[in-house]
């Protein structure tokens, strides 16, 4: 049996959404759902494995925008209220299902218990900041935490603006240092977006490795020896870890991935849409905007509206089968690759963290089962992280120039540069040029001007987030995404036009600082191209 290494990388990221100007804001639910359904369950899984003395390790990228939101007291308080509403709804659902829909009673009780557990963990255990949970697991050697671009910008579309690329990387690294107390070794390339030369910026900030899309290897101008089964060194020495498309597609494929199994829970059927407004009204958004509540009772069943009730016991058994299938598939490939490769293969399996628990309800159970099977030790697979792998085998990597690539549709930039979103680049690029101009003309300002310029830099960075063009492309929350890009750029223009006439709009500044409270320690001089 051949030995192979397996490296899970989970990218935890959400765009910066924080609207204290509204009593409740619909898009803030993205964060609350992710905490409830993915981040807290993943932390519980990690701690359960640790308590059971299961050896494991994997990588988690926590984006600066997510970290900012997770550490924000206002959002923490709102999340607590969100949990309280869920507990209240859970109690009502347990009573309602007992009488009206007994087939759902088990799940209603499960959701109530999950909401109570989340409340206890969040408020009492983590003191309203779950970043401490990730930090603790890293300190105990279970996780490797890494950073990503400041606002998760899709970097290839800003290649012509080195100051903006540098700002995204430098602020990503510095935010990580502020949050976790040390510099990151790895850098999650947003959307696996890579262009040759990006590694120079990464190296200048002390980054040792990043992940790429699978095709970055086979489409390289160099002859790659080991496909995606070994990381490579870029010409400047930074390591690139290509994603194993075959392994990730077992999970991620919309057509045939494990989460599409008909026994698993249906994501899109939620009581927020199914129950009468008179009942569900207090738990959705005003005025009567139906949203997901997280209370979902149906199984996928098939491509039909006639769903069958979800059976948690059957689904759990299926996650075990899928975990075994996953391990079996990787092991077979490792055996097949053994004679062909000169070195032990590494499977790099990169996913969005929110896939586990939020999108794929059973995903955390599956991941835990995979980890326990690997730890059982008889499969020839060993978990590792990129940094550990480099420590062990960094001397024996081939030097290769990865090719321009991303993990989006088509493998390049098409998702983020599409008919629906291409309009934005004219304005964002202009804002970057003007931000460079401001940083050059008004370097090292103090007090109000400094704050004014710092806020301008924040607005430019927020406009660059990859989430906005993706939402426009995907036609999901596209209006909100368009508004956000427009708002950030309009905000930037306030600074530009005022600075050009030697003025500071103090009213705007105070309100903008209050609204977009991200990167507290930013220094706008970072945009000075002469730096």
């Amino acid at each position, binding site marked *: 049996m051949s030995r192979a290494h397996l490296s899970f990388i989970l990218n935890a990221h959400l765009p910066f959404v924080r609207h*204290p*100007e509204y009593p409740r804001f619909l898009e803030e639910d993205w964060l609350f759902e992710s905490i409830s359904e993915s981040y807290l369950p993943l932390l519980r899984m990690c701690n359960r494995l640790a308590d059971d003395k299961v050896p494991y390790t994997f990588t988690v990228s926590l984006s600066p925008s997510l970290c900012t939101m997770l550490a924000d007291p*206002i959002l923490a*308080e709102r999340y607590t209220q969100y949990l309280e509403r869920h507990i209240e709804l859970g109690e009502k659902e347990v009573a309602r299902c007992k009488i009206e829909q007994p087939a759902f009673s088990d799940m209603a009780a499960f959701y109530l218990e999950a909401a109570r557990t989340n409340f206890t963990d969040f408020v009492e255990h983590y003191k309203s900041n779950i970043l401490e949970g990730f930090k603790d697991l890293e300190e105990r050697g279970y996780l490797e935490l890494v950073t990503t671009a400041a606002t998760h910008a899709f970097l290839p*579309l800003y290649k*012509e603006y080195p100051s903006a690329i540098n700002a995204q990387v430098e602020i990503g690294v510095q935010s990580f240092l502020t949050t976790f107390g040390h510099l990151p070794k790895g850098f999650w390339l947003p959307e696996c977006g890579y262009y040759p030369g990006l590694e120079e910026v990464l190296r200048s900030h002390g980054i040792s490795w990043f992940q790429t899309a*699978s*095709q970055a290897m*086979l*489409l*390289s*101008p*160099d*002859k*790659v020896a080991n*496909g*995606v089964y070994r990381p490579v060194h870029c010409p400047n020495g930074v390591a690139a870890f290509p994603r*194993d*498309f*075959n*392994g990730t*597609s*077992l999970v991620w494929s919309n057509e045939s991935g494990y989460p599409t199994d008909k026994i698993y829970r249906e994501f899109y059927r939620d009581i927020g849409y199914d129950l009468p407004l008179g009942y569900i009204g207090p738990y959705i958004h005003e005025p009567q905007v139906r949203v997901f509540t997280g209370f979902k009772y149906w199984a996928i069943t098939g491509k039909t509206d006639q769903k069958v009730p979800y059976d948690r016991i059957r689904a759990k058994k299926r996650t075990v089968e899928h975990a075994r299938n996953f391990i079996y598939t990787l092991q077979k490939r490792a055996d097949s*690759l053994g*004679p*062909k490769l000169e070195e032990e293969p590494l499977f790099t399996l990169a996913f969005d963290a929110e896939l586990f628990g939020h999108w794929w309800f059973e995903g955390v159970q599956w991941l835990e089962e995979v980890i326990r099977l690997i730890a059982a030790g008889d499969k020839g697979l060993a978990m590792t992280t990129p940094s550990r792998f480099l420590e062990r085998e960094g001397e024996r990597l081939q030097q290769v*120039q990865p*090719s*321009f690539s991303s993990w989006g549709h088509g*493998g*390049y*930039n098409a998702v983020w*540069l599409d008919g629906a979103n*291409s309009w934005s*680049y*004219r304005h964002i690029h202009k804002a970057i040029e003007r931000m460079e101009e401001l940083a050059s003309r008004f370097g090292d*300002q*103090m007090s*109000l001007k400094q*704050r004014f310029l*710092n806020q301008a830099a924040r607005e430019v960075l927020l406009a660059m987030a990859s989430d906005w063009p993706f939402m426009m492309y995907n036609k999901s929350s596209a209006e909100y995404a368009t508004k956000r890009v427009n708002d950030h*750029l*309009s*905000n930037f*223009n*306030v600074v530009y036009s*005022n600075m050009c*006439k*030697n*003025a*500071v709009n*103090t*009213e*705007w500044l105070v*309100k903008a600082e*209050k*609204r977009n409270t991200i990167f*507290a*320690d*930013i220094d706008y001089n970072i945009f000075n191209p002469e730096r």
Partner: protein
Amino acid sequence: MILINIDSLSTVELQHIAEQEGVDAWQDMDREELIDALEDAFGEQDDEPAQTIKGKINRNRYCNSLTSYRGKAYQVNGLPGTESLPECYHDTSIHLLLRDPQWAFAYWSLSHQVLEECVDEDGNELGRFFLRVSQCSSGASEVSSYDIDIDISDRQWNINLPEMGYCYHVDLCWRDRRGEEQSLAQSNTVEIAAPYWKHATEPFDGSLDQFCTHFSSLVTREGEIVDNAILRDVAHTLSKGVL
């Protein structure tokens, strides 16, 4: 320096700024006195470089904290002073963004001066705008080019890139009625490196093992190749039509 709407700030915020600016006895001032003092302070600053007051404040990179002077109950109903984005900007420039190895996206803008010069008093065009797409080798020598006619109202275009292994740039050009051409602006250059396997004369050295090493990772268990047109071409060629 002009301070716009400084009277909209809270007294605590005014005190904070006054403290930052080194205003004497700011603790003893009422609201109006603080505003007067700050206007005086910032008025004086116009004539002196920022460096002269640098020593007053301990300024460290990444250490400029936001103020926290208002309670969280405060609600903002839209930021003041913002305006809608313009449709385009009034400089003459063209930018090229790589979409994939076969397509790029160009956007451009034209200055008022250029727009005035290219039409007569009645608004009739005195010539035509066009894009010239140039394909260059890595040594920057031009290999070939082609033109795309555009309308005076056009501001963006998808550009076909005929071949991998070359650099491309686009000129925004004007041709007058006499046929004389002029480049008004040139874009940045985008480079498309050709994959090694695209032109390899001995694919995978004839080794099936090596072929599997590369392609086993790029195919789903249902036999679907990763979503990438170039890769599919390469796979098709190297597998002699099997994939």
